[in-house]
């Protein structure tokens, strides 16, 4: 209903619709568009980095600007591109996969998105307001606490607000998955993507508060004169490293696990086989999530924690390779004996296996504490985490987008253009990053503005930069595909791929209430179970009745706007106390909205049975 109806009403109404929406499917669109834009921005920053490093002693950009680029590239890609794109998939798919009509907290869902966007916009405002943060995405103190200008202030405030949004989103999906499953959808019948989102949400819940605290400490040090990281007043800079990585390591599993889930669904669908070793896969996902909290200090082997701590964290880190290995083999054996269809979604998934295996293996190499004394903070590490984050997360996002595009937008992405996206990106990726392992071992530290002549690093860097252009080309083709598909392609059927899970049992895109009647789930891969018994769709678990739906609300947007305003107040009150007024205005708006939300009854509305019958058809 959404797009077509809204356009008839004109652009203003369309905009208002999206500003106030609490529908998880529209929130998915919002996450996708804003995450996509930030992805392009982060990609542009990456291209500038690679151009700067194309030849030795290059002067393409200045040293200070380079540090801003590398900081913003990392921060943007992790917090403003990967996270929201994953949230887009979670929102688009999870409620459908568990047979729910919406998420548990539609209002909070919208709030989570607007907070993320407010944080992302604040962070990027820094470019136009005196310079971006320049202390790396890890923002180690005291480089970050003593960095001149307001760059790092934008980092602190932007991430604090965006992080709050993510935390809210995490809680929302936990409750959704626990409470909102359709009858018969037991935990051990949930699709792997839903399982992975469940574990990821748990990680978000327990990891993000550590970042919140770290950011508060940094904010107090920079803006209010506290001494957490000021060694002259007894402060200790290592506290930041611990807090950051207690958050930061689970964060990388937060990023990768949902895509592990998506790959599982894709392998299973396009091999026409149920997932091999389903319970082992679930167990491995949970175990990875759990171990994710035991390993943060492997980012700090050279910090000087001593051989005992280094050894412990080395061994726990290696242990993560076991559940990850289980997953790789289970994926391979899901395809074993199947009928593999090489769609674009499957192509990205198949490319993921060797790429991620290499990334995982270099991960084990890095886990070897003593050896990390060489790898640490070199291009070897850069290569490693791009192999897992691009090879896992970005490949996964591309695979998922191609796979679920019809469910999100009602059309299957053009396959030819899809493959033309894949090949340059895949080749360019390996060209860019494989060589970087060697650059690191040959003595090139990461975050280097320049490398000098005569160090034997010229060829490698040149190859790496060329690869980056291939990746950029692939990305542009994807954008063309989006436009082309929207204009030219046919409307997709409900189940274009012979799917197995609940989302394929309803129209593409689904009506705003998702399921006219809640389906009855009778096994793993519920739609497949019904189809293999010769039925066309799901058996309903209830008679047709009124459907309860939540009301739209502008409050989430206004609340985020309040924090956005307050954020600028916090940043600039250091220069002039008058700016504190913005803090009061902004916080007043936000707290006022919370008060309104608390005292104003909002019971939602009902879609009546008669109207549903009239719609007929689906």
């Amino acid at each position: 209903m959404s797009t077509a109806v809204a356009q008839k009403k004109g652009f203003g109404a369309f905009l208002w619709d999206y500003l106030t929406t609490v529908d998880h499917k529209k929130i998915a669109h919002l996450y996708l568009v804003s995450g996509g834009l930030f992805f392009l921005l982060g990609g542009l920053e990456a291209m500038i980095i690679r151009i700067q490093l194309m030849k030795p002693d290059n002067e393409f950009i200045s040293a200070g600007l380079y540090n801003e680029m590398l900081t913003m590239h990392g921060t943007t890609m992790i917090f403003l591109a990967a996270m929201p794109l994953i949230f887009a998939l979670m929102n688009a798919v999870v409620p459908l996969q568990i047979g729910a009509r919406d998420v548990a907290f539609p209002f909070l869902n919208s709030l989570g998105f607007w907070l993320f966007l407010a944080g992302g916009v604040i962070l990027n405002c820094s470019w136009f307001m005196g310079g971006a943060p320049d202390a790396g995405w890890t923002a180690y103190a005291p480089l970050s606490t003593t960095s001149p200008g307001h760059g790092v202030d934008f980092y602190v405030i932007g991430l604090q607000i965006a992080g709050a949004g993510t935390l809210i989103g995490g809680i929302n999906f936990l409750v959704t998955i626990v409470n909102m499953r359709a009858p018969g959808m037991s935990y051990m019948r949930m699709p792997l993507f839903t399982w992975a989102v469940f574990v990821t949400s748990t990680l978000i819940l327990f990891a993000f508060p550590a970042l919140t605290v770290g950011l508060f400490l940094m904010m107090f040090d920079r803006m209010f004169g506290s001494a957490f990281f000021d060694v002259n007043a007894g402060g200790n800079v290592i506290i930041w490293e611990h807090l950051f990585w207690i958050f930061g390591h689970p964060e990388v599993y937060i990023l990768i696990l949902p895509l592990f889930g998506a790959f599982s669904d894709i392998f299973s669908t396009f091999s026409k086989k149920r997932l091999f070793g389903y319970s082992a896969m679930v167990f491995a996902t949970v175990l990875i999530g759990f171990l994710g909290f035991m390993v943060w200090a492997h980012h700090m082997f050279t910090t000087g924690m001593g051989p005992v701590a280094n050894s412990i964290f080395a061994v726990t880190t290696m242990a993560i390779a076991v559940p990850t290995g289980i997953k790789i083999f289970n994926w391979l054996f899901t395809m074993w004996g199947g009928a593999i269809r090489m769609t674009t979604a499957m192509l990205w998934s198949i490319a993921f296996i060797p790429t991620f295996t290499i990334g995982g293996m270099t991960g084990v190499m890095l886990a070897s504490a003593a050896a990390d004394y060489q790898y640490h903070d070199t291009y070897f590490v850069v290569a490693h985490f791009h192999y897992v984050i691009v090879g896992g997360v970005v490949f996964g996002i591309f695979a998922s987008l191609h796979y679920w595009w019809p469910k999100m937008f009602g059309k299957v992405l053009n396959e030819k253009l899809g493959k033309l996206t894949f090949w340059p990106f895949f080749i360019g990726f390996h060209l860019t990053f494989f060589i970087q392992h060697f650059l690191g071992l040959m003595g090139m530290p990461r975050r280097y503005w320049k490398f000098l002549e005569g160090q034997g690093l010229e060829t490698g860097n040149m190859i790496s930069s060329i690869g980056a252009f291939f990746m950029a080309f692939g990305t542009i083709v994807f954008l063309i595909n989006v436009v082309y598909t929207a204009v030219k392609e046919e409307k997709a059927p409900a189940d274009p791929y012979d799917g197995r899970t609940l989302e394929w049992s309803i129209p593409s895109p689904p009506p705003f209430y998702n399921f006219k009647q809640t389906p009855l789930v009778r096994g793993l891969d519920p739609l497949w179970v019904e189809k293999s018994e010769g039925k066309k769709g799901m058996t309903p678990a209830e008679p047709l009745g009124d459907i309860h739906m939540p009301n739209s609300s502008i409050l989430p947007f206004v609340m985020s706007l309040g924090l956005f305003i307050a954020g600028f107040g916090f940043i600039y009150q250091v220069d002039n106390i008058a700016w504190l007024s913005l803090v009061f205005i902004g916080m007043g708006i936000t707290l006022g909205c919370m008060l309104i939300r608390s005292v104003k009854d909002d019971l939602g509305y009902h879609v009546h049975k008669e109207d549903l019958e009239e719609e007929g058809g689906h």
Partner: protein
Amino acid sequence: MSNEDVLNPKRMPHEPEKATLEGKNKFLGFWFFLGGETVLFASLFGTYLALNDSTAGGPSADELFGLELVFIMTMLLLTSSLTSVYAIYHMKNNDLGKMLVWLGVTVALGFAFLGCEIYEFYHYIHGEHFTFRSSAFGSAFYTLVGFHGGHVLFGLLWILSLIIRNAKRGINLYNAPKFYVASLYWHFIDVVWVFIFTVVYLMGKVG
């Protein structure tokens, strides 16, 4: 369940806070939220423990703290936790009047606690010249205890607004979960204070 049933239930169930799906969601979501809050305070405690000796020549924990006031504050907050239990007990019995009375007592005790804390901080700042900026210890102390104080203030405002909003209508399936999670929040604040009392004040005096 129609909206009318939610606002004016014909028969009040025994656990009105969990009678609707929205209520169940709120209940579970709030527990998860408290899980996150636990990590937040754990991080603050970790920071405090790492810095509690870093006085940079300023006053130390042992010199600053007096246990008498803190003991009174502990009693105030523990009692307020108990009174909020009474309030929820009366909510389940659908007795609005008694619930409001006990919530009122809870709020009063909470404000008394907050008053003591403000007095304590005032005393440190003006009597002992021990501020947020004195040393890393000072920063860590005021941040940890201040975060807790901020939570207390937020909880008080929250419960107050619930009291005022619902004073003129009965308990129903829409507001029961709100009262319930507010009381959960209040208990959580109380538990955190027990840790602050132990880790900051007792260990600061004895350790």
